[in-house]
């Protein structure tokens, strides 16, 4: 059975608020929250020149490959990845074993500051994600697509 992950208005507002604050507090260029299947949940900061869809997919691929390596070595996961570039750096971490937090930063910030701020933000984001999960488990997920008809689906292809 396919389970659906549904982000409601309130979840989205809380997630975006944490990402906005992390962008400011960490002096980051941009912050993204991505689910482990490669779908973008939220973005904050200077995202206009970034292909966010590709970034989300590649980040999830990166985490999946690293998770595979971890298992080979008998680790549960490697929860933090850091990629250092000439100008920009990427800090990638797993939140609540479910979603991926990506921070892009340059020389105006530092790895230490980013790690510190990410730790705090992860706790808050983890709380939101757990709420989303709990709601799905206890109340079931009411799909907004339950009402669509076969005709609606056919029309998509016409």
């Amino acid at each position, binding site marked *: 059975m396919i389970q659906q992950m549904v*982000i409601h208005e309130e979840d989205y507002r809380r997630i975006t608020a944490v990402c906005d604050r992390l962008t400011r507090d960490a002096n980051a260029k941009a912050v993204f929250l991505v689910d482990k*299947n*490669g779908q973008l949940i939220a973005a904050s900061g200077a995202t206009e020149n970034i292909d966010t869809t590709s970034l989300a*997919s590649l980040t999830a691929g990166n985490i*999946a490959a690293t998770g595979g390596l971890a298992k080979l070595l008998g680790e549960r996961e490697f929860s933090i990845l850091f990629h250092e570039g000439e100008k920009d750096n990427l800090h990638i971490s797993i939140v609540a074993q479910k979603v991926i937090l990506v921070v892009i930063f340059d020389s105006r910030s530092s790895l230490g500051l980013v790690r510190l701020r990410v730790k705090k933000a992860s706790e808050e984001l983890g709380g939101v994600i757990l709420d989303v999960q709990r709601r799905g488990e206890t109340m079931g*997920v009411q799909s907004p*697509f339950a009402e669509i008809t076969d005709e609606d*689906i056919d029309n998509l*292809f016409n």
Partner: protein
Amino acid sequence: MPFINLPLREITCKIVYYGPGLCGKTTNLQYIYAKTNPEARGNMIALATETDRTLFFDFLPLGLGEIRGFKTRFHLYSVPGQVFYDASRKLILRGVDGVVFVADSHPDRLDANLESLENLRTNLAEHGYDLDTIPFVIQYNKRDLPNAVPMEELSRLLNPRKVPEFGAVAVTGEGVFETLKAIAKLVLQKVKSG
């Protein structure tokens, strides 16, 4: 696992193209990319070796339009077909909503098709999915080969469940969009039923 973002009114589904090495999975995605309005698709990512063999995955994001005010997006992935990339192949199936199995019609690839299909079943099971219930279509590619195995025989060997099946020549686009349309429909019908 379809991802539904209510504030943005978006639903995103993941479709994986699976099959043996050199069967035409990447070619399917390349044709879709080439023939789709640039406004309806994102950039195509190909993580390939220097000889253009898929190393990790190909990725193509597509927008199919709106259903009752919801933007309907599909993320198309293809896996590396070569046998020794099994660890990577398994990872790509995480969170999959629908699978297209691209079979190679060349007679010498019959065993490779069967092996890949069995591998798909095993790898899906590791993620908790059942090939017998997940939205699934089969494409018999390379129908233009002079010695192509008859469709009926391929169907008998590879499609006992009688899922939707299509003959195709992915390099010219024959059957490519029919296959995509069929799997997208099955996925949306599954989303509808919850």
